[in-house]
């Protein structure tokens, strides 16, 4: 089975919940465990929130693109913004690092994305935008499970 979805939304904060619910609904077809579903919702929420806060500085008219592609029980999730971009990717990936401590950010977004997935790639160019690509493999389904 090989299915995909592409979603384009604007950068308003209501779309954080919408984006994670959408990806969760897309994955329903492979019947993930509750923990897997919760992990995926979290990583989507992290990346979309970053696009809104850091990429577009909380201006709601930016465009966010979200792609999810399924190959058997492996999903590739790509989240892209055309915002500010990241100057120093190594620094950004450090646990607890945030460029916006005044907004009470925890600096844990990338650490969570890294921990909850099997692969995390960050492509970013200052003033051009950021693309986060994550791969997550799901547990094989029990024999005899219903669809």
């Amino acid at each position, binding site marked *: 089975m090989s299915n995909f979805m592409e979603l384009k939304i604007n950068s308003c904060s209501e779309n954080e919940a919408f984006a994670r619910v959408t990806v969760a609904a897309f994955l329903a077809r492979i019947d993930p465990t509750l923990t897997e579903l919760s992990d995926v919702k979290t990583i989507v929420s992290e990346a979309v929130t970053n696009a809104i806060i850091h990429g577009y500085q909380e201006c709601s008219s930016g465009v966010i693109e979200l792609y999810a592609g399924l190959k058997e029980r492996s999903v590739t999730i790509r989240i892209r913004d055309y915002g500010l971009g990241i100057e120093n990717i190594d620094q950004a990936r450090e646990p607890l690092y945030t460029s916006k401590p005044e907004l*009470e950010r925890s600096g*844990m977004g990338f650490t969570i994305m890294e921990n909850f997935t099997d692969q995390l790639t960050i492509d970013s160019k200052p003033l051009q935008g950021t693309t986060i690509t994550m791969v997550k493999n799901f547990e094989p389904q029990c024999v005899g499970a219903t669809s």
Partner: protein
Amino acid sequence: MSITIATEKQNNILMVKLAGELDHHTARKTRSVIEDELKLMKNAKLILNLAELNFMDSSGLGVILGRYRALKEAGGELMLCGLSPAIKKLLQLSGLLKIMTTYENEQEALKAYEVTL
């Protein structure tokens, strides 16, 4: 897709029960409701009950860490209770679990606090 914030005060104890989803979108409201309640309190003990949160991400960690720091600075204290496995995982990953006091539920948190009086 939203959050519900229920608060209850007993002397210098503020109990806050969050229900729904705590993310960047709902963080502002959560923060301001709690800060408003704490404003007039001295040496406040904040018990944050997360049992009915069905989603939280790193924006929620920011809210928790923010309250922890503000209370510590003001001579108060933060206690967490009702942690789901998913939320516990986030607290663990960020190191917050080590520095925070956590309890099973509100009763346990209250009991523990009364013992220290």
